[in-house]
């Protein structure tokens, strides 16, 4: 794969990951503030279904099925022709539709910048802050072993 194409795919995937992790009401709030168009034709869904989650035996061995999780997906087409997809855990159909529109808009050079700065960047900042808070709270419970010298030498 050419470098340009790989970067393109990585950017699109990163946006999808952000939208899948973000809270639905946060996406809706930012969308309203962003002035991004939300007009799109639904080609599929939004529909809720299941994925079967796989793990690996021993953590790194052969795959096995652990259980299922709810996932909601949508596919849209913009008036300008771009087709966008979304998949996210949970059952929020509004989130699925907005995320699919965001994916489609991102593919349109006229809108990519706005999607990145007005939607993805603030969502990423909020996710990173929440993740960091959790990390330092967890770090406070790290065990510091020390050795006690007992008795005379």
């Amino acid at each position: 794969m050419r470098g340009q194409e790989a970067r393109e795919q990585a950017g699109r995937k990163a946006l999808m990951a952000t939208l899948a992790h973000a809270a639905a009401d946060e996406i809706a709030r930012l969308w309203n503030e962003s002035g991004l168009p939300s007009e799109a034709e639904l080609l599929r869904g939004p529909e809720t279904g299941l994925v079967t989650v796989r793990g690996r035996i021993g953590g790194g061995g052969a795959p096995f099925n652990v259980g299922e999780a709810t996932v909601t997906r949508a596919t849209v087409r913009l008036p300008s022709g771009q087709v966008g997809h979304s998949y996210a855990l949970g059952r929020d159909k509004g989130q699925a539709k907005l995320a699919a529109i965001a994916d489609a808009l991102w593919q349109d050079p006229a809108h990519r910048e706005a999607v990145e700065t007005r939607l993805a960047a603030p969502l990423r900042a909020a996710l990173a802050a929440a993740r960091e808070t959790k990390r330092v709270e967890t770090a406070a419970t790290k065990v510091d072993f020390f050795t006690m010298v007992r008795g005379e030498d």
Partner: protein
Amino acid sequence: MYVAVKGGEATIANAHRLLADRRRGDRSVPALRLDQIVEQLALGVDRVMSEGSLYDRELAALAVTQARGDMIEAIFLVRAYRTTLPRFGYTNPVDTGAMQVERRVSATYKDLPGGQVLGPTFDYTHRLLDPELAAGAEVEMPAQRPAEPEAMPRVSAILAHEGLIEADGEMPLDHVPGDITREPLQFPMARDIRLQALSRGDEGFLLALGYSTQRGYARNHPFVGEIRIGEVELELDVPELPFAVPLGSIRVTECQMVNQFKGSAKAPPQFTRGYGLVFGQSERKAMAMALCDRALRAGELGEDVVAAAQDEEFVISHSDNVQATGFVEHLKLPHYVDFQAELGLVRRMRAEYEARENEDKAAEEKREAAE
């Protein structure tokens, strides 16, 4: 002759209306909201997700409420709901080594990369009921410790190079992971299928079996190599996109049990392993699963099968609490015709028995009289 019996429709409707009322309880007490259950009864919600085999916190919380806190009933509701949804596919296997760790402990190694992190644990509490909690006291915010992010490789990966511990469980390259939600159980079964059944198995049942192995029924000298709890990323391959689509993250608990093994005709002395991986935060379940996984590998490792925990058909056939409760609880449904038939049979046998007794008694009396 077969007589169909109908009746009780109005009664059943009234019983369900009464159930709804009792579920709601005293109307002067505020009704529970699902977000309260998700946030404050989180481990109960996790158990319903794990044994209901469906990761969805709000649905599990709804099931807990609808079932009035009856966990097995809630698990049943979740299992039934699953069957109404289409299936989008199988995710790529989660990478627990890349987990955002919320707890990680090892009982075998004190100093390991990433360290021991206690996280939100009941361990080292004194198990004293807290009257302040009952009074609704404010709870302080957690302590924070700024620290550089550190990688936390799985303990098994750290130990592997010594060669004294088994590798992660491999299967032949062309092996497609079995799926008990698609194909009926067949014995003997491969380890991947057993693990799927154990991961959704009843916590109490697996706990008791794991405990039995510690008490000497299929003893296998376990150590907790590692327990880790945290969020892992999910990705799904879909035809419409040229890359695996990210779905978000789920919380799981993983347990690596390490077992001393003195060797057999099939394998040299080494540390063998049992593996547990369950939805949510549930280390008791993950540990029990790992103990059972190891015990069930008896055949593969050339051990004698002498105890219940090593008997695959026994363990896997009885680990599902939805199946178990279905079969046990069906006994309370009308069995009038069955019972009538049995009653007739027992009456006849009793009559025959008494006739025989009387005959014997008469014969005895006759013999005594003759003597």
